[in-house]
């Protein structure tokens, strides 16, 4: 009998073009996503070397990082941002790569539109010059971020030179408690593993807590895998996966669909398959999570307090915590729910999908944003925005005092004009609370969409379970 294999083993081995004597693998790449920020230098490299894009049909580009979330017909005011977006369009035209430009009705955040269009498929290898490519692992695709030089290599050769990562399984086999979402689950996992805990690994998520999640929730979990240091997250595709993909414009159709699903059903880790590392957690112990510091591992339950550096195990960690507290303007022992916020951001490739918007709207409905809070929603794609509007969610947000914007990366990293002002504090559904991430000297607390909505209403970090009742 054949050696039991993990899902990762199966995908990896089915994409090996060559294994070199020195252990470097030439890995075939099925799907390559591009955005305007990390691709210009890759195209420039091709141009200088006189090379072509090997498979434009396996490549898809979209403008998302720099695009304004206000009226786009007015164009982009910032000349550098405008040049980058225009350069993407010109490069795609020159090299024959399909693109959704800023005004395309299919435009959106690259990691939202890949699945939405059915470009992301189970069993494939997916890359993008963007660390949150991990998102696509929710579909049973091996998906990871690469640098621009590696992106140029994929454009030219449709392959990557890489060494095989190690394989970790995170098993959470009980149901999530009420009020907890995929975001709380992944924040709790990052809190346990640490931001470097997954370095050198891909992480397969297994067990009921993940199976119970919708595809949107699974994408949120897989998306933040990189925040634990692992380049890719991976989940077994199942009936939810197939139902999500069926009928999507770029998904297989007709007889091809049947053949594809038959193959996708084989994409499971075999019983007895061996992992390099295993972690087990209990979902029952998870409460809604919130970050207090400047690294995604700086996470506590919303019922907790700002931790004390004195309790940290190493001097390096104590120093790092003191720096984070200073940056965040927080004092150890402060109850998390006593921390006021100035901004609320609902959006980003982590939490901007229809389910996220519905969850936030459920909290907001009939209530009003606190007078000192500036709150905004940026849906993950133009199609999601339309769907939300068809469901009347936009009216709920607007009536409460939220700004209802166009789709893009927006305030997650503030490359466009959407930024948190210096010293201001933001409850954000995004993925990184690094120093300066949402704006210079801006202070970020990462939370789920429902928790962000709750903070907007009360004007402070809030346990959503108090409002949801």
């Amino acid at each position, binding site marked *: 009998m054949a050696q039991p294999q993990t899902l990762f083993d199966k995908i990896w081995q089915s994409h090996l073009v060559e294994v070199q004597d020195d252990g470097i693998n030439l890995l075939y790449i099925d799907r390559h996503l591009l955005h305007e*920020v990390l691709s210009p230098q890759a195209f*420039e490299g091709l141009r200088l070397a006189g090379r072509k894009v090997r498979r434009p*049909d396996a490549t898809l580009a979209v403008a998302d990082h720099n695009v304004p979330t206000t009226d786009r017909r007015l164009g982009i005011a910032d000349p550098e*941002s405008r040049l980058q977006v225009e350069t993407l369009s010109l490069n795609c035209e020159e090299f024959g790569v399909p693109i959704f430009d800023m005004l395309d009705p299919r435009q959106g955040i690259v990691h939202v539109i890949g699945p939405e269009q059915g470009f992301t498929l189970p069993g494939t290898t997916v890359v993008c010059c963007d660390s949150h490519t991990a998102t696509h692992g929710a579909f049973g695709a091996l998906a990871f971020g690469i640098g621009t030089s590696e992106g140029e290599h994929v454009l*030219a*050769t449709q392959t990557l030179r890489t060494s095989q990562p190690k394989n970790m399984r995170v098993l959470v086999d009980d149901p999530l408690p009420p009020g907890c979402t995929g975001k709380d689950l992944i924040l709790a996992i990052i809190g346990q593993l640490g931001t*470097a805990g997954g*370095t050198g690994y891909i992480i397969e998520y297994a067990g009921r807590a993940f199976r119970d999640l919708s595809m949107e929730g699974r994408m949120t979990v897989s998306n933040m895998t990189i925040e634990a*240091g692992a380049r890719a997250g991976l989940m077994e595709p199942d009936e939810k996966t197939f139902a999500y993909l069926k009928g999507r414009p770029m998904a297989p159709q007709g007889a091809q669909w049947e053949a594809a699903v038959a193959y996708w059903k084989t994409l499971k880790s075999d019983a007895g398959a061996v992992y390099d590392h295993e972690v087990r957690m209990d979902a029952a112990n998870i409460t809604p999570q919130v970050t207090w510091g400047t690294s995604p591992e700086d996470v506590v339950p919303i019922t907790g307090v700002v931790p004390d550096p004195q309790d940290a195990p190493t001097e390096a960690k104590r120093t790092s915590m003191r720096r984070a507290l200073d940056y965040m303007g927080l004092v150890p022992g402060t109850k998390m729910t006593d921390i006021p916020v100035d901004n609320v951001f609902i959006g980003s490739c982590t939490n901007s999908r229809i389910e996220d918007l519905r969850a936030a709207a459920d909290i907001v409905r009939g209530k009003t944003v606190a007078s000192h809070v500036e709150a905004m929603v940026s849906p993950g794609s133009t199609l999601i925005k339309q769907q939300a509007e068809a469901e009347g969610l936009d009216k709920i947000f607007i009536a409460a005092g939220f700004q209802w914007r166009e789709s893009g990366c927006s305030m997650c990293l503030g490359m466009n004009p959407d930024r948190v002002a210096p010293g201001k504090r933001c409850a954000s559904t995004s993925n990184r609370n*690094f120093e300066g991430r949402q704006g210079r000297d801006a202070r970020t607390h990462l939370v789920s969409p429902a928790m962000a909505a709750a903070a907007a209403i009360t004007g402070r970090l809030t346990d959503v379970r108090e409002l949801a009742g």
Partner: protein
Amino acid sequence: MEKFIKLSGVAAPMDMINIDTDMIIPKLHLRTIKRTGLGKVVFDELRFHTDGSEKPEFILNREPYRGANILVAGDNFGCGSSREHAPWALLDFGIRCIISTSFADIFYNNCFKNGILPITVSQEELDVLMADASNPENPVLTVDLEAMEITRPQGSTIGFRLDNFRRDCLLNGLDDIGLTLQKVDKIDAFEAAQRQQQPWLYPSAV
């Protein structure tokens, strides 16, 4: 890509863990379509006040570290985004080698595409090198990739390891796209087989 064989230069101590890519190169500087010119803004928010004046306490604003070619940094260097602007900015400043106890995976790969050598050492070795770099009188380290060793200011050495492929690419300044294109027959064959088995991955052919 410039070869990396041997480097002797000032090593700057950055005794912080989790130095992320947003610190190395804040997002506003990602709005470029070039690889060059980012050295003047590397570590922008750590290095400069909002009015553009230098923060005198930041290590790269102090002598002799203004001319540093090597960084000695805390654990998990380069975590966060995949932005290759991080190594481009470091390189443009003059940094050719970074020494830490661990690096984020994507950043680590990006270094090798740009002629930068990231060296992983043990915590004990890092402590020693951090102390060496922190002595402004003589913070000079010599990194020899052929011998795979770091020579400390007083002459003793610390060995390190690196896989052969990456070492060869750095030593020879190789363009790995050119190397891979020599294997185009194998890529063609892979695609032909995959197209048979999973035709839905080839939309133009369906």
